[in-house]
């Protein structure tokens, strides 16, 4: 695990002595963040924070990452996220159930790979279809897979409610079923996968994805294997979503049925990447924070402010309105996502980074995938 991390850090540090320092300066905040997440938070966090906030936040960020690889980097719009997550969850469940000797991390990875394979099949139409048509066509997979898991009892080991539930979570005899344990397990998975993803998007594969996204005809002409790139994006994206799904089922809720991974979930994940920023790894975390935390914040704030004086139902409606309005507002403020906004703020704080007039985030060029 930690090796993957240093890999990621190493990736930030471009070769060349002059850049070493810059790389370090970029890696330092990240290292601090990880230290806090791995050491301080487990010591300081409460059950509520783990169970209700941090774990879902991390998992949704991971799902966002999966979709972002597919949609933000490779430009293949998909609403099949829920289905990929479900596949990962059900696959992992069956692996744990039927091959109990395989250690948990391996089952998770295998579950992800199975989801990736399903993703490839779902992605086949992308070789012919684009844009909203592709988006709408991924709904076929979304509904079909949801139905299959719900319909055929084998997938849920014939449980009465076709739901699956987590077996005991343990790695190397370490019990992970406490909130802290589940948090650490989730965090580890998320960090490891994010590190790999960060590598991947900077590699030849990632470049091929972006090339296909930005201009697929040109990509083909200069020698990028377009079909293979699209499918590999579906594979990786779905695999990451699959792991997120498995974590959702086992590390967060404990028990789920296929409806937990319905269309709403797909939309939610899409929100995350749009609000956070397409084509940005950090954006997934920002977006996830927005989507997962904002409603909680809104409800707590409004309870504090108006609790008891305003009718509870009306309050809830107002929150819904506020949530929708905030989404629109952020899209208007920064169509390239909060990650871009954050980056701009960051640069403004450190004027050394800003160099003259530049078309940095020229609209229409950013985030335009179709």
């Amino acid at each position: 695990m930690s090796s993957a991390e240093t890999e990621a850090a190493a990736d930030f540090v471009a070769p060349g002595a002059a850049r070493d320092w810059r790389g370090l300066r970029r890696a330092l905040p990240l290292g601090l963040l990880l230290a806090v997440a791995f050491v301080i938070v487990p010591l300081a966090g409460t059950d509520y924070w783990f169970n209700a906030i941090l774990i879902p936040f991390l998992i949704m960020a991971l799902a966002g990452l999966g979709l972002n690889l597919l949609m933000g980097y490779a430009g293949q719009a998909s609403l099949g996220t829920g289905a990929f997550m479900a596949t990962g969850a059900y696959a992992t469940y069956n692996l744990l159930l039927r091959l109990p000797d395989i250690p948990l991390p391996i089952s998770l990875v295998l579950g992800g790979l199975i989801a990736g394979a399903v993703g490839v099949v779902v992605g086949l139409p992308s070789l012919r279809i684009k844009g909203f048509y592709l988006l709408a066509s991924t709904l076929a997979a979304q509904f079909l897979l949801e139905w299959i898991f719900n319909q055929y009892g084998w997938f849920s080991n014939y449980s009465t409610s076709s739901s699956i539930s987590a077996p005991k979570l343990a790695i190397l005899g370490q019990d992970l079923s406490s909130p802290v344990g589940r948090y650490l397990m989730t965090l580890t998975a998320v960090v490891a996968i994010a590190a790999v993803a960060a590598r991947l998007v900077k590699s030849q594969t990632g470049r091929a994805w972006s090339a296909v996204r930005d201009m697929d005809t040109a990509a083909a002409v200069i020698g990028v294997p377009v079909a293979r790139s699209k499918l590999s994006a579906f594979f990786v994206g779905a695999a990451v979503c699959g792991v997120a799904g498995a974590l959702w089922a086992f590390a967060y809720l404990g028990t789920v049925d296929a409806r937990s991974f319905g269309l709403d979930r797909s939309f939610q994940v899409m929100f995350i990447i749009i609000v956070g920023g397409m084509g940005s790894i950090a954006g997934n975390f920002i977006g996830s924070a927005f989507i997962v935390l904002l409603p909680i914040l809104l409800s707590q704030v409004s309870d504090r402010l108006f609790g008891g004086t305003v009718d509870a139902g009306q309050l809830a409606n107002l929150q819904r309105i506020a949530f929708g309005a905030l989404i629109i507002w952020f899209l208007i403020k920064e169509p390239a996502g909060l990650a871009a906004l954050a980056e701009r703020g960051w640069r403004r704080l450190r004027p050394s980074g800003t160099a003259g007039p530049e078309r940095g985030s020229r609209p229409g060029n950013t985030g335009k995938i179709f």
Partner: protein
Amino acid sequence: MAAAPFLEVDDIEATYEDVILALRGVSLRVEEGAIVALLGANGAGKTTTLKAISNLLASERGALTRGSVIWKGRSTARLDPAELVARGIVQVLEGRRVFPQLTVEENLLTGGYLRRPSRAEVGNDLARIYTWFPRLKEKRRIRAGLTSGGEQQMIAIGRALMTRPTLVLLDEPSMGLAPIIVQEIFEIIRTLNEDEGVSFLLAEQNAALVLRYADHAYVLETGRLAAAGTAADLAAQGVEALYLGDAPGAAAATSSSAQQF
């Protein structure tokens, strides 16, 4: 030169996304019936100036933050682009922005709608465009997105002329056109100018060419006015020198206040 100002741009400053300062105090005038050239290197702010005049900045998250644009004695600040077209200013956007899904003829027709012309009028106008660009007549039923680069440029120009403007803002009209067409376009410009009194503000890279047709010229450099004068004068000075910014007579456009960063 003391005639009532036709188009007067006074000390404008324009930004994109509230932070990128693209114009810093540009002033220029177009007299009625004149052809004025706007020169400058890539990124100098030619396009931005034209968009500031036609009020198209808002659609690109840009804004005029200072100065004013006066069209026939009235400020254009509150007019939306369609209103400006109705009052005679039309812009041909840079980079052949045709409507790809519409046929060539439909593209041209869209230019006429604002005037609510009769069928006969439309027919006449179309015929006029087709005599200028016979190539378009052949392609009239093809979807514009499929036509060649030069054909698209012709469509964009033809479409703008369909609005029967009194002032045309042309952004890089010669780009990608065959020499003979470029020549024709400039001849058309001259004809329209002489016969119908249409004025032009032309942003061009090909300085030698445009100065041959223009009366007046302005040179922009990184958002500031670097030089101005009659076309003949500027041509004589050598435009190349102007681009480097060390030209004499650089306008006093130095009020580079309001740093937005």
